[in-house]
């Protein structure tokens, strides 16, 4: 009885077009989750082809199958222990020699492999002519030329894979585990035989553009322009889309009250809906453009240039060049900023970067800084707060990198050629990340919204505020009402200001808070705990233990700094 269900994995080093191929194969039938017990992303999908149901697993882009990183361990374990019918090794034909180093490691695992020689259009443009037949002979595995961005070669790879499974062909040129030197020499020899350079090397537009973007002097202003354009677009689109959604939903609360009244259950029901709406108002307007632009820049190849230019600066805070992207995005919204930490290579760097993004004042915090301190105390104090935030990020970054276990890894990165971004891949990647995030954030936000509303209806808020007063009043010098504000602030930070106005019945905060209190409150809002949506992002990226750790640290840190600030500021005013 022929097996009609097959398992395959996509294996290859970084930047070879794996996601394009994965999307081609699985389209909308894909699911991005986590490897069990770990916070590494796992992308799986299914397709139906010629009567077979084929499950595809997209392995992370790795350079070796050793134990250098968790991704490598996971990959090696999966291939050797799970039922994998055949492996699709995706190879960038423009960098064959480097790619073959990995292929040779893969062959040593003694599973059927089909080599998908991708980017044939680009290697042709570079004047490289590759003898696929000879390569096939030398390696002992089928070699399929492919142009994934045009969908060419994909079905042929599947055909070869199915053929391998059907014939149970023993892997002829069984490669035992070779040493690095043996792999390097063999790869070099193979390439000398199969690659012919047919055109003299001309300077391509990609190279010319690189001379500008990596230029010692001009590279930086160009980067400032591109990144600012990115951040501004996200801000602008985010702001517009946010208001747009607000307008649509503005009458809904009244509508709800009309239908369901104002009983306890009605109010709780509304708070659930309101929380969901709030999440969509936070998440979609900023996350969608963020992901689209991030994947665009990455696909195009620009992110690697950013890492190149900013690496040494980022080293001062214990991370690398690429970390500046999440940090900048944090100014719009911490949520996509935190999720973007996956562009860092190691868990350690991802964690430090993720932690630091929660300290970046997002637009909600900006509402507080500008609306409270900027308006009532003075604009220079408002700027001072931003500066302080940056100093804290640098300071805590240095501290984190010194105290966290593991060594600071050096940047080792391939510099990809610039290429035409593939719109379909970008949109699909965005869609699945968004879905994945909403799955986690949704329940969290709705449940906490309902809980807070429940506390409010039960009349416990004043009691809680009193309970917190030793900290809020005695230590931080703020009015008792602050306790309530800070609890609401967990939902969305701008609620701190919004609730203050609501509870006071006026937006003239100067009547209730003096300058010292305003600055202290803004400071606390900035540092004390990430909003629930950000907590969801942290949870998604790092698991609940680390999220709890960050939360606990930031609460303690905020209280400490707030109290010290209060005492220093009291002397200045």
């Amino acid at each position, binding site marked *: 009885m022929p097996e009609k269900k097959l398992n395959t994995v996509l294996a290859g080093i970084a930047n070879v077009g794996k996601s394009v191929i994965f999307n081609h194969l699985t389209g909308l039938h894909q699911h991005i989750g986590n490897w069990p017990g770990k916070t590494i992303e796992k992308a799986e999908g299914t397709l139906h082809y010629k009567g077979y149901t084929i499950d595809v697993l997209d392995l992370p882009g790795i350079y070796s199958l050793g134990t250098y990183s968790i991704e490598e361990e996971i990959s090696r374990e999966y291939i050797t222990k799970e039922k994998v019918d055949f492996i699709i090794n995706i190879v960038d034909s423009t960098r064959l020699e480097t790619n073959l*180093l990995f292929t040779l490691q893969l062959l040593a695992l003694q599973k059927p492999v089909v080599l998908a020689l991708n980017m044939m259009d680009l290697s042709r443009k570079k004047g490289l002519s590759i003898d696929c037949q000879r390569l096939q002979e030398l390696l002992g595995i089928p070699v399929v030329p492919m142009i994934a961005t045009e969908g060419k070669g994909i079905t042929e790879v599947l055909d070869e894979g199915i053929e391998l499974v059907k014939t149970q062909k023993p892997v002829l040129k069984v490669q035992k585990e070779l040493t690095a030197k043996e792999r*390097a020499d063999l790869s*070099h020899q193979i390439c000398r035989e199969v690659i012919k350079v047919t055109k003299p090397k001309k300077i391509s537009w990609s190279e010319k553009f690189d001379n500008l973007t990596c230029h010692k002097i001009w590279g930086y202003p160009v980067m400032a322009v591109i990144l600012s354009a990115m951040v501004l677009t996200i801000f602008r689109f985010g702001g517009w889309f946010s208001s747009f959604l607000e307008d649509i939903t503005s009458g809904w609360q009244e509508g709800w009250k009309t239908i369901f009244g104002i009983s306890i259950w009605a109010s709780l029901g509304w708070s659930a809906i309101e929380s969901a709406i709030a999440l969509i108002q936070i998440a979609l307007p900023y996350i969608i453009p963020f992901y689209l632009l991030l994947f665009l820049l990455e696909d195009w190849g620009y992110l690697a240039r950013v890492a*190149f230019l900013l690496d040494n600066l980022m080293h001062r805070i214990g991370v690398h*060049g690429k970390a500046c992207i999440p940090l900048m995005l944090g100014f719009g919204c911490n949520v996509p900023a935190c999720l973007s930490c996956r562009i860092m290579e190691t868990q350690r760097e991802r964690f430090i970067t993720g932690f630091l993004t929660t300290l970046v004042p997002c637009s909600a915090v900006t509402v507080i800084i500008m609306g409270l301190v900027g308006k009532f105390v003075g604009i220079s104090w408002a700027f001072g707060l931003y500066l302080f935030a940056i100093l804290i990020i640098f300071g805590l970054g240095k501290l984190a990198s010194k105290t966290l276990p593991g060594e600071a890894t*050096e*940047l080792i990165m391939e510099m990809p050629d610039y290429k035409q971004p593939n719109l379909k891949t970008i949109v699909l990647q965005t869609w699945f990340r968004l879905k994945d995030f909403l799955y986690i954030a949704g329940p969290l936000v709705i449940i906490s919204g309902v809980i807070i509303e429940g506390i409010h209806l039960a009349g416990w808020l004043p009691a809680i505020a009193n309970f917190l007063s030793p900290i809020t009043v005695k230590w931080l010098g703020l009015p008792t009402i602050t306790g309530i504000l800070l609890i609401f602030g967990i939902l969305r930070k701008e609620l701190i200001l919004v609730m203050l106005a609501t509870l006071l019945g006026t937006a003239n905060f100067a009547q209730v808070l003096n300058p010292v209190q305003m600055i202290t409150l803004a400071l606390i809002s900035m540092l004390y705990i990430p909003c629930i949506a950000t907590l969801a992002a942290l949870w998604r990226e790092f698991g609940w233990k680390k999220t709890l750790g960050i939360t606990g640290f930031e609460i303690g840190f905020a209280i400490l700094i707030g109290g010290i600030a209060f005492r220093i500021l009291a002397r200045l005013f």
Partner: protein
Amino acid sequence: MTNEISLIKLREGEVAEIISVIGGRMATKRLADLGLILGTKIKVLRKAPLRGPVEIEVRGSRLVLGRGLASKILVHPVK
């Protein structure tokens, strides 16, 4: 006597052969996985300013190495 210098001392456009890699097992292994081993020929393409990373060409690929790591690679310039 071989002329051994650190990779970061090379100028843009210079070609050299790797003699050795000083440093931890991890770094050495990582570099080896990418094909940077004894005898490998590399070419310095670009050096980032402000003590930044170094971009090299090796085995037909372009690789960017952080400054600290690059300084640990000892090379012998060739013509």
